[in-house]
Every structure is written in structure tokens, then in C-alpha cells.
């Protein structure tokens, strides 16, 4: 039995993923992918479902720590909400396609995007400002980022994975 820790911001309600579905996705995924940053792993799993509103994909990202499973994302992604075929795509491709529509901007150093994966961002010597910042939407949103600073030279931010999600827009897709 997995000891699961869900993020406190995770929406709850009939249209959102339930705990048992998240556990099942981690334990018996249809597809899995691992983001490796050399010294830690982020696991991203998918399971395919058919619900009252049509087919959808459950996408869950998690980490293991002290015998606990920390869930960072648990998203119900309707097939018609993204521009790729989830059943023919990898978990990261599905997540990236989802964030193209429902993502919020993240700025890391001088670079911006809704999704960063294995990206080294140089910091100018005269760089002044926020190393990592997220742009809130009009409503609720979340940002996740795994990064480290390398003094260099050159000084840079090494990003393993970063994304930001507009929870209100996501809710409208369900």
C-alpha cells in the first residue's frame, strides 16, 4: 500500500481525480516516464479512462522520499482538450501539450516558457532580478520547479523540470 501525500492545492470534487485513481495510476500505469537530473528522479505516469464526459488521460507525477510517495501533479486530461493523441504520446508529450493550453508563464533568468525540461539557463554577470518567477493568472494557479544554481563560470540555473498551471482554466476543461 502506498503512503501517498497529495499536494494541498489539489482540487477535489467529482470531476477531479480521486485518490484511489491516483494510487492505481502510480501502481499500474499504462505508460511511464522518468525525468532524471543526475541525482534525483521525477516519475510521470499515465492511465487511460473512459468517463461520462468521454475518454480522458489521468497524468500523475510523483517522487519517493522516506517511504512516502509525494504527488506533485495529478491531472485529468480529456482527450479533446489537447492537440496530441494521448494514446500515441509519451507522458511528457501529453503534459507539454496540456501546458501549451493551460500553462502559465514561468521566467527563469532571461528565459520564459510554460514548460522547462533539462534546461541550463545562463545568468548574465549583470543579471538583476528574480531568478525564478511565475506569472499568476487571474485566478488560481500553481508552479512547480526543480532547479539548482551553479556558480560557474558561467553562473547558471540548471532546471530539471518546471511547469505552471492555471487551475481555473483547467477546471473549465473538465
Amino acid at each position, binding site marked *: 500500500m502506498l503512503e501517498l*501525500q497529495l*499536494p*494541498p*492545492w489539489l482540487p477535489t470534487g467529482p470531476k477531479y481525480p480521486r485518490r484511489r485513481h491516483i494510487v492505481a495510476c502510480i501502481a499500474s500505469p499504462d505508460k511511464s*516516464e522518468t*525525468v*532524471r*537530473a*543526475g*541525482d*534525483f*528522479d521525477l516519475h510521470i505516469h499515465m492511465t487511460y479512462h473512459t468517463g461520462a464526459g468521454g475518454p480522458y488521460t489521468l497524468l500523475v507525477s510523483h*517522487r*519517493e*522520499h*522516506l517511504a512516502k510517495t*509525494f504527488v506533485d501533479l495529478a491531472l485529468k486530461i480529456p482527450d479533446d482538450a489537447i492537440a496530441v493523441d494521448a494514446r500515441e504520446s*509519451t507522458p511528457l508529450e501529453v503534459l*507539454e501539450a496540456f*501546458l*501549451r*493550453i*493551460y*500553462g502559465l*508563464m514561468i*521566467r527563469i533568468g532571461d*528565459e*520564459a*516558457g*510554460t*514548460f*522547462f*525540461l*533539462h*534546461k541550463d539557463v545562463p545568468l548574465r554577470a549583470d*543579471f*538583476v*532580478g*528574480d*531568478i*525564478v*518567477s*511565475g*506569472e*499568476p*493568472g487571474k*485566478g*488560481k*494557479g*500553481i*508552479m*512547480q*520547479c*526543480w*532547479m*539548482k*544554481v*551553479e*556558480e560557474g563560470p558561467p553562473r547558471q540555473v540548471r532546471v530539471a523540470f518546471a511547469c505552471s498551471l492555471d487551475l481555473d*482554466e483547467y477546471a473549465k476543461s473538465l
Partner: protein
Amino acid sequence: MLAAVLGSAGRVDGGGKHLEEGSESVTNGTSIEDLDPGVWYHIETVFGQPGAALSCSRVPPREIRRDSEPIGPIRCADAGTATPTVAPDRA
């Protein structure tokens, strides 16, 4: 308007809420100089709801890989992910 998360000027905004027990964490008032170079941090920020919070925590040691897995992507980021992008419905 950008919400400051981790400021090089020496500020971390947000509630300083820590979500991972047992991890060594940084919180409000932490500057980039206070972060250990070469150490992985997990930043999670919640926007726009009561109790909105920031957590900035070291990646716990138990997550550190002890083997010699090579550093690198299992899949390279698409060109569009590393450059400024605007979601289609926000363009």
C-alpha cells in the same frame, strides 16, 4: 505582473509553507546567496487562493541517486519549450 518567487535581490515572497517533512528548507527572506550552489531545490508556488504559499526546499537526501546514472535528458525539450512561448488562447 510577475510574482517574485526567488529573488536575487534577497527576497522570497509567499507564505514560506513547507510541504516536505524532513527536508532542509529556506523561507521568506532567503536570498539566492543563501542557497547552496550545486544543491537541487524544489520550488512550489500556489497562486490566487486563500493560504497561497511558496515552498522552497532542498530535494531531500533520500531522493538523491547514489548510482552513476548519466546526467542528461531522456528526451530533449522541443525548441518551443526553451524559448518564450504564449499559450494559443492567450496570444
